[in-house]
């Protein structure tokens, strides 16, 4: 059993399970964020965000989520170091083999996502949770919420922030494009008829999630 943490295939299993979990999280996150542009005001968003921030179950999940990120990143780094060590002397002529384009750049896109994560966490999560720099708002039912929505709207009215977000989100999209189907392959799910479906779903997922996320700052910048 211990080999599941130390062997190459074991480490990859960790990567893929964490990855799949993060894929699910991204959908949930998108579902909440998209309310910002689906609804006229930010009430739904603020209510959902607060629910996410206070519900005890979600709080546990938050820890798991961070664990997931950490696991995915740490194992990714460990595997990457192993990969680099496996070819101490490289080729003069760059590899020309026919492979899926995005799969070659998983490390690069992972670094982009890390930058994004730091920026993003600081922008919203840290500000909200630790700096207390988010205003409060009270809705008709008398409940008071952090007006996170207002913060988002404010940030995404700044042109360069939008540009940076869009660029970094594209990196995420590329990562997901390969990551989605790769996770299934690692889990041993490869089938003559199902694998093409998984691959299509992966493309669909990465396109939908990326456009979904990108649409938020862009929409806010131009239309709110």
């Amino acid at each position: 059993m211990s080999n599941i943490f130390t062997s190459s295939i074991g480490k990859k299993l960790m990567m893929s399970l964490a990855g799949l979990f993060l894929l699910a999280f991204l959908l949930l996150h998108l579902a909440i964020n998209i309310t910002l542009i689906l609804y006229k005001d930010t009430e739904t968003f603020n209510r959902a965000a607060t629910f996410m921030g206070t519900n005890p179950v979600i709080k546990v999940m938050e820890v798991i989520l961070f664990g997931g990120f950490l696991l995915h990143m740490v194992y990714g780094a460990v595997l990457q170091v192993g990969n680099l060590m496996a070819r101490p002397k490289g080729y003069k002529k760059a590899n020309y083999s026919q492979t899926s384009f995005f799969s070659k750049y998983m490390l690069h896109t992972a670094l982009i996502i890390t930058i994004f994560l730091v920026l993003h966490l600081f922008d919203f999560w840290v500000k909200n949770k630790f700096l207390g720099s988010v205003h409060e708002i009270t809705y008709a039912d008398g409940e008071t919420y952090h007006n996170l929505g207002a913060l988002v709207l404010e940030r995404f009215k700044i042109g360069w922030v939008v540009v940076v977000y869009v660029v970094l989100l594209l990196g995420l999209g590329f990562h997901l494009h390969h990551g989605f189907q790769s996770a299934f392959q690692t889990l041993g799910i490869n089938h003559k008829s199902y694998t093409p479906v998984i691959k299509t779903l992966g493309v669909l997922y990465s396109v939908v999630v990326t456009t979904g996320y990108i649409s938020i700052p862009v929409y806010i910048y131009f239309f709110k």
Partner: protein
Amino acid sequence: MSLLRYRSEIIKFKEMNFTLKIWRQENARAKGRFETYQLQDISPDCSFLEMLDILNQQLIDKFEKPVCFDHDCREGICGACGLYINGRPHGPDKGITTCQLHMRKFKDGDTIVVEPWRAKPFPVIKDLVVDRSAFDKIIQAGGFISVNTGGVPDANTIPVPRKNADIAMDAAACIGCGACVAACKNASAMLFVAAKVSQFAMLPQGQVEAKERVLKMVQKMDELGFGNCTNTGACEAECPKEISLSHIARMNREYFSATFNA
């Protein structure tokens, strides 16, 4: 139609000239370098290795040391040859070994860069020759069914569904050339190991030792310093026998089942 047939039978192609940049390294410890050679009047029907033979004859004529490269059967089955040509293991064609590559796949005047397989477990021995004994070690770790000679049941007492036998054969076609490792950006040997694991996983004879086999072979693979699979599919694209990634997935399943149902 008739004209096409006619053409293919009679047209003699013009001979071609090439610039070769070849990795030369005196021995395992020496520092290597690229040497440039000009080669003239090569027939397009010449195989890549025959082209190197011609180069070597010219080098010997000049009292220079010929380029060393591994090769034996020259019909794509022994797995001895393997050169990294212009960024691709076994060069610019699909489903072939280096010895099956022909010069008609290049253009007159092309510069061709020839490198050895690069991977830590495949150290260069000389020039383009690498040591692939790591593959033998993986097989020795468990790539067999433990039966002694004699005392086995009649062959037809072990029926195998035809579909499974076909999948086993697809995997068993591996020639152990190492192109998968050479192509992989991580120098991973997953396709090679998976081919053997998958072959036996598809056969009833392989079931008895299935768990032990996959664990031992993967352990040995890791120990030898191969990289990890990131499912890019370069191995599948360059495999001369076109062995599919699905065998890697099967090995992963075997591995998980061996780990969790121990």
